[in-house]
C-alpha cells in the first residue's frame, strides 16, 4: 500500500537552509526584519530630531550672526516675543480649525464607506478619496488660488446665483474675511481642509469599520436614539481613528509653509517662519525652537486626549 515517499523531504538548497535556520531560531528572523527599519527610525529619524532639539538650545550671536554652541534658553525666550507668539497662536488656531473642519466633513464620508459601501462602491470610495493625492500638491494649491480669486469660479457662481451679498458678508467678517477668498484666512482654511481631508477620512473609516453593526443595534435595542448612539457608542469607538486623523491634519497644518504663502493674507505661520529663519535669516536656533513648538503641542494634545479616554477602545 505505502508508496515510496520518504518520511523526511530532502533539502532544496539555500532557501530551505534559511527556513531551517529561522525555524530553529525564531528571534533571528525578527532581528533580520527589524534591524533596517530600527536603524532608520533610530538613527536617521530620531537622530535628526535630537539634533534639531540640540540646535534649539543654542543661540545666535547678535553681532556676528554666528551660532554660539553654548547651552541657553535664550532662543526659547524669544518665542514669547509678541510677533513670534502671534505666529504660534495663529498657527494653532488655524490647525485646530482645519482639524475640526476635516473631521466634520470626513465623518459622514467615512461612515458611509465603513457601513454601507460594498464591492464596487467601496472601490469608488477609495479612488475618490485618494485621487487628489495623485496630483501635485503645488498644482492643487494654485488651482485653488484660481478658484478662490476675485475673478474665480466661486465669485462668478455667487453672482449668478444672486448670492454675492452673502459672499461679501462673509468676507467682511473681521479675522476670517478679506479682499477676496484667495487673500483671506478663510481661503487658507478651505485649501488646508481640501489638501488634508484624505488623511482624516482614511483612519476614521478604518476605525468605524471595526465597530460591529451589532453594537449599534444593541444601543438602539436598549432604547438609545440615533444621537445618543452616536455620542455614547460610535464616537468613543471611532475616537482612536479620529485622533489618528487629527494628528495628521493638525501637524501637517502646523508644519506647512506653502499654502499660507500662496493663499491668504501672507501672515506668517510656524512652517513659514521656520523656512524663512533657516534660509534668509540664517537663524537656525530660532528655526529649531519654532520647530519644537508643534511637537510640544502634539504631546500636550495627546495627553489630554488620553486623559479624556480617547484611547479606551484601542
Amino acid at each position, binding site marked *: 500500500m505505502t508508496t515510496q515517499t520518504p518520511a523526511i523531504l530532502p533539502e532544496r538548497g539555500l532557501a530551505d537552509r534559511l527556513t531551517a535556520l529561522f525555524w530553529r531560531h525564531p528571534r533571528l528572523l525578527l532581528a533580520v526584519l527589524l534591524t533596517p527599519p530600527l536603524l532608520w527610525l533610530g538613527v536617521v529619524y530620531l537622530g535628526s530630531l535630537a539634533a534639531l532639539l540640540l540646535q534649539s538650545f543654542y543661540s545666535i550671536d547678535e553681532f556676528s550672526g554666528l551660532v554660539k554652541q553654548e547651552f541657553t534658553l535664550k532662543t526659547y525666550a524669544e518665542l514669547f516675543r509678541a510677533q513670534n507668539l502671534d505666529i504660534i497662536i495663529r498657527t494653532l488656531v488655524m490647525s485646530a480649525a482645519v482639524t475640526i473642519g476635516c473631521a466634520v466633513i470626513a465623518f459622514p464620508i467615512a461612515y458611509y464607506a465603513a457601513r454601507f459601501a460594498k464591492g464596487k462602491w467601496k472601490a469608488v470610495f477609495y479612488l475618490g478619496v485618494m485621487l487628489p493625492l495623485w496630483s501635485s500638491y503645488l498644482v492643487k494649491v494654485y488651482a485653488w488660488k484660481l478658484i478662490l480669486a476675485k475673478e474665480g469660479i466661486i465669485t462668478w457662481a455667487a453672482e449668478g446665483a444672486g448670492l454675492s451679498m452673502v459672499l461679501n458678508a462673509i468676507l467682511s467678517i473681521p479675522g476670517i474675511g478679506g479682499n477676496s477668498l484667495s487673500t483671506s484666512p478663510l481661503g487658507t482654511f478651505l485649501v488646508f481642509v481640501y489638501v488634508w481631508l484624505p488623511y482624516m477620512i482614511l483612519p476614521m473609516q478604518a476605525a468605524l469599520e471595526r465597530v460591529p453593526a*451589532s453594537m449599534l443595534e444593541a444601543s438602539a*435595542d*436598549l432604547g438609545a436614539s440615533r444621537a445618543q448612539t452616536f455620542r*455614547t457608542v460610535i464616537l468613543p469607538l471611532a475616537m482612536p481613528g479620529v485622533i489618528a486623523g487629527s494628528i495628521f491634519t493638525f501637524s501637517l497644518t502646523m508644519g506647512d509653509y506653502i499654502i499660507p504663502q500662496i493663499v491668504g493674507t501672507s501672515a506668517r505661520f510656524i512652517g513659514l517662519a521656520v523656512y524663512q529663519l533657516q534660509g534668509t535669516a540664517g537663524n537656525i536656533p530660532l528655526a529649531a525652537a519654532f520647530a519644537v513648538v508643534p511637537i510640544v503641542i502634539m504631546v500636550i494634545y495627546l495627553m489630554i486626549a488620553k486623559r479624556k479616554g480617547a484611547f479606551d477602545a484601542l
Partner: protein
Amino acid sequence: MTAAVEFQNVSRHFGPANAPVKAVDGVDLTIAEGSFFAMLGPSGSGKTTCLRLISGFEKPTGGVIRIFGQDVSDIPPNRRNVNTVFQDYALFPHMNVRDNVAYGPMVKGVDRRTREAQAEEMLALVKLEGYGDRKPGQLSGGQRQRVALARALVNEPKVLLLDEPLGALDLKLREAMQDELKALQARLGITFVFVTHDQGEALSMADSLAVFNEGKIAQIGTPKEIYSHPRTRFVADFVGSSNVLAPEVTRAFGGPAKWASLRPEMLRVTAADGVALSGVVTGLRYLGAGSRVTVAVNGTEVAAQLPAGQAVPEAGAVVGLAFDPSALHVMEGER
C-alpha cells in the same frame, strides 16, 4: 391571555422584486405572554430574521406584527420595550460591566445613583456581583453572556429576545446556562423568545416552539407534540433525526400507505425468527449512552437506538425489529 407577539402573514423578502430571497415568507405566529418560546430551524430558515422583525432591526415587506396588541410597523427599535441578547453579546468594549448594564437606564435619563444601583441588582441576579468595574474584554464567554442578559433585563422588557445565546459556550456551561435561563424566566415571568438551531436545547427549554424551514413555519406546538407527532418529513428529520418511512415502507411496517415517522428509540432489536420485520445489520455506532444500529429492511435503512448495557448485534447479522404500533406516526406532508 394576551398574545405577547403576534405575526399576521408576515414576510421579509430581500433583493429584487422579480426574484426575491424569501427570508421570511407568510408567517403566522402567536406567542403567549409569559411563555418560553423557541424558534428552531437550520441556518437560513428565517428564525433569526423573525427575531429581528420583533426587535425592529428588520422591517416586514408584508403582513403585520403586533407586540401586546399594538401594531409596531412604524415603531423604531429604541421605542419597542423589547430587549435582545445578541449572539455575539455586543457588549460595549469601552465601558465597564456596570456601565454596560446601566446603559438602558442611562439613555432613558435615569440618574447615575439609581441606574448604578439597578445595574448592581441585575449583576447579582446573574451571579456577577463584584464584576462591575471590569471591562468586557476581561471576562470569559460565559460571564459576557450573563452581562448581556443583565443588560437586557435591567430595562424590564415585555419580551426578551435571545439570538442563539448559548451557541458560543462549551457543552458543560451551555447545560448550566440552560437551567439558569429556564429558572430566570420562571421567576421573572417575562416572555422569552429564543432562537436556536439545537433541537435538544429547544425541546428541553421551551414551553412551545416553532420549527422553521425555508422561511416558513413547518410546525408549531409544544415540544412533546412536535417530537411525538411531527407533521412533516422535515420536522421528523430535523427534530431528533427520526426514521422517515416512504408510503410503501410504512405499509410494510404495518401502517397505511402514507409517509410516516418512527423514532429510533422506539425500535427494539430482536432475534430474526418469528417476527414480521427482519433485516441485515449494516452499521453500528457507539454513542456512549447507548448504541445506534442501522438495519436494512427490504432495501430501506432503519436506525434503532439501543440503551447501554443491551447486547449489540454484529455487523452483517440478521436481526428482527419490533415496535409498539402506536409509535408509528403518520405525517401530513413533506416540508
